[in-house]
């Protein structure tokens, strides 16, 4: 089954939320107005990203981050020959140029920089190909998407998007009971912690904003991030009256009602 569509209808944040919650493995291809990007995941964790024709090899990443000079990059390339990124990394570690931590930190930052840029893409198409992974010769990492989504949400400037996702500030929030969803593992800033500390079905989003002296945009952006990271859910606040009940089934007696529904069930089964 395909997973494709337009970024205008389903944003990058929503896609990452889907990949995270469904623990998907595969590659997401994004075609923006000017360039394309590929982001790969294993069981819902971010492992790799490539933007357009950028040199995403280990040499290219180290050059971009300033860890090596252009001359050194050229030298490495001429010496490395057909070596994979893993072999090349090992060669650099053994030669004492870099340690493993340096290499992984640079790859991690390179991947995150690409993904954070993608949050600003609001035009273009997406397609997710299940089980398609980056080439074997690339070094992959493993990053929790909750933190990535939170950081990406901080960069959202589209009021409409936030308004659509959180139309009613008079609703409350509750922490989700999902394996792996632990708020303590997520890097939150001070403002976000202030909001988190008031999350409780008794407090509406509006009340939390007022207590923390936040405007609508500020509170929506934080709540949006927490929602998309799958850490909280919107719930009806404690004490909020339920909508008026619809008129009941014609027979008021409970047994008669059940009998009527059973007759409907039998009839539809027989069709």
């Amino acid at each position, binding site marked *: 089954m*395909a997973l494709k569509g337009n970024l205008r209808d*389903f944003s990058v944040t929503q896609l990452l939320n889907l990949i995270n919650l469904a623990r998907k493995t595969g590659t997401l291809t994004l075609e923006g107005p000017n360039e394309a990007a590929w982001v790969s995941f294993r069981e819902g964790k971010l492992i790799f990203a490539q933007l357009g024709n950028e040199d995403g090899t280990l040499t290219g990443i180290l050059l971009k981050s300033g860890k090596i000079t252009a001359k050194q990059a050229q030298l490495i390339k001429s010496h490395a020959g057909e070596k994979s990124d893993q072999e090349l990394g090992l060669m650099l570690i053994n030669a004492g140029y870099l340690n493993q931590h340096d290499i992984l930190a640079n790859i991690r930052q390179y991947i995150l920089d690409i993904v954070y840029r993608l949050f600003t893409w609001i035009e273009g198409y997406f397609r997710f190909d299940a089980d398609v992974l980056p080439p074997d010769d690339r070094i992959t990492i493993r990053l929790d998407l909750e933190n990535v989504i939170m950081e990406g949400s901080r960069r959202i400037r589209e009021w409409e998007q936030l308004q659509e996702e959180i139309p009613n500030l008079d609703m409350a929030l509750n922490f989700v009971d999902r394996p792996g969803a632990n708020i303590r593992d997520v890097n939150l800033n001070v403002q976000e912690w202030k909001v988190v500390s008031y999350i409780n079905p008794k407090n509406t989003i509006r009340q939390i904003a007022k207590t923390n002296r936040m405007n609508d945009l500020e509170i929506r952006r934080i709540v949006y991030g927490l929602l998309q990271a799958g850490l909280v859910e919107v719930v009806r606040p404690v004490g909020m009256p339920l*909508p008026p009940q619809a*008129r009941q089934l014609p027979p008021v007696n409970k047994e008669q009602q059940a009998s009527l529904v059973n007759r409907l069930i039998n*009839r539809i*089964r027989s069709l």
Partner: protein
Amino acid sequence: MQTVKMVVTGPFNAGKTAFIQAISEIDVVSTERKISSEAERVKETTTVAMDFGRITVDDDLVLYLFGTPGQKRFDFMWEILSEGMLGFVVIVDSARPETFREAKGILQTFRAYAPTPYVVAANKQDRDDAWTVEDLRIALKLDRKIKMLPCVASDRESVKKVLLELLYSILEEMKEK
């Protein structure tokens, strides 16, 4: 003669008319009109007031199925149609993510009109570009407790399964009360 009704709702071109047509014992009384808006011209006609199907249960019980108009400008009909309903089915076109946001909105609106049981039918599951039921559940932010069923609205067996699941939900809710 006792009559009960269920409502079939969902975004424009989700498959509501086909759903009712597949199960109704009468030709669906449809109020379709040619589409005037270019933006919505993915099909030739659309429902402007309601679709209406019937299933006779026995001599003194009839089930009516009402399909709501899909276009936003006819949403004044929704509240009228939802009054006194036994439950409702929200049909989502699994192959058109551009309609998911609207589906969420319709779902919330109907929940506000009447907190009766409902199920979500992920229609057009026979198409290659259909999203899976599990992906759709996340996209629509549907709670695990809400039944979401794969569906092909033109297939009677598929429609039967959806309606039966709705009736089971209604029965369960009665027992809980």
